[in-house]
């Protein structure tokens, strides 16, 4: 069962990489900077792991590491999405 679950994860990983390649090759050069800041925000999804660590019942080293990780990931999420929106707002057609 363990092996099966792991294999499913590898499966998901491989397919997601292909989806990523397909989608991102279609992004025009004009949008490459917002793409980078936006994908940075998405990589802030590590916040999920950070919350699971920071929210432990007992206060241990894991909680401290989780606390810092929540702060780091949240900078990514908030900073990334807001700065991307700030940039995209400026893109106007004539």
């Amino acid at each position, binding site marked *: 069962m363990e092996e099966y679950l792991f294999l499913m994860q590898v499966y998901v990983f491989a397919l997601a990489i292909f989806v990523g390649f397909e989608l991102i090759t279609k*992004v025009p050069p004009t949008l*490459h900077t917002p793409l980078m800041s936006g994908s*940075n925000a998405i*990589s*802030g999804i590590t916040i*999920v792991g*950070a919350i699971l660590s920071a929210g432990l019942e007992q206060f241990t080293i894991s909680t401290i*590491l989780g606390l810092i990780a929540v702060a780091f990931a949240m900078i990514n999420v*908030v900073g990334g999405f807001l700065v991307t929106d700030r940039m995209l707002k400026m893109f106007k057609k004539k």
Partner: protein
Amino acid sequence: MIIAIEITYLISSILFILGIKYLGSPKTARKGNLYAAIGMFLAIAATLLDQQVLTFEWIIIGGLIGSIAGLIMAYKTPMTGMPQMVGMLNGFGGGASTLVALSEYFKKNPNYPVDTGMPFNLPVNEGVAIILSLLIGGITFTGSMIAFGKLQGLVTGKVVKYPLQHPLNALLVLFVLGAGGYVVMFPSMMALVLVITAVSLILGVLLVLPIGGADMPVAISLLNSYSGIAGSMTGFVLGNNELIIAGALVGASGIILTNIMCKAMNRSLMNVVLGGWANAGSASTTSSTTSPKGDVKSIDAEELAMLLDSVSSVIVVPGYGMAVGQAQHAVRDLVNLLEKKGVKVRFAIHPVAGRMPGHMNVLLAEAQVPYDKLYAMEDINDDFNNTDVVIVIGANDVVNPAARHDQSSPIFGMPILNVDYAKTVIINKRSMSAGYAGIDNELFFYPNALMYFGDSKDAMTKLVNEIKNL
């Protein structure tokens, strides 16, 4: 409950994918960003409902600190500082992955903080994922901080060489992999896990330090990719598919952008990572004796205004020098003025015109230049032949024809904008000095080239006034 949380993760993953899909067009890009943000909100909300999460004060404290810092960064960073900001964000992403992996290791260890005497059984796949998270996340964290420092001017932008650079780095990577393998087999080696983390952090510094300032667009893109892959690895540690998917999307994005940047500079990734342009810099000083000589013709604002009064098509080639000189608003005024006179004006953007992929487009968008006037190199390079005037502002190496024919030039083979094919090329520069790659530009000596000397902002403002006075 578990099912509800998993379904929310699925919806969130779909929103990420849709978000990136909509980022594919300027018309829908804002919507795409919003979709991704909603996806993130859902993922965070679902995680807070997880039965593992029992105390909220640390999450709230960490979340508040991060949100405030992110908010300030997002609104205080000038558009010229975007590469630094993205570099910093890459770093925090990688740092978060490292911290989560470390935290998971301690969580899974039954003998920490109290020694229970129980055997520590770590499944091989989780052990490998923890080690890779630590390695990639650690490199991304410190590497990005060095990249930030280089772009911000806090760390030297020069290619830094140190003794035994390559053997040392190879040795450290091998050490991490070897020690990592040992930890996977004997998970209770806590000290070794900490050493692996420390060595990974040191590796980040050692790997990015040798990369020159001119190569930062590549380094930033590569670190962007690393931050995604580190996130995926954390997904494997947690057994969470959404992290795996989101990380893979970001990883793919970074790799594609890295590839585009490398091609635009005609460099192999290996060459950039190993700090290769140093040799080019020294070669150029010796080859300066063979550098092009001849007459350089210059033009002043009044003459240029008259010249532009009689043309029908103009292409503007902006370089980073324009952004440094804060001339983009004056350039926009110039373009508006010319268009009023019925001149067809377009912008030609070289992929490495800014300091990161697409940077120049953002800088021009900020100056309210419509994005449909901006053309990528491959879309406009055939049009220079039938263009009356090209105005090069603050760009140098990307318009150097030597890249096409001079095999001894360090930039030989680099794709360039064919500005010399136009009837007249106006080059606005402060002086005749060499470009970023440290080489002279033969374009300045071409018969159809005219130098328009001066600070880019002053020069453009003067030109606008002259045209108005005609």
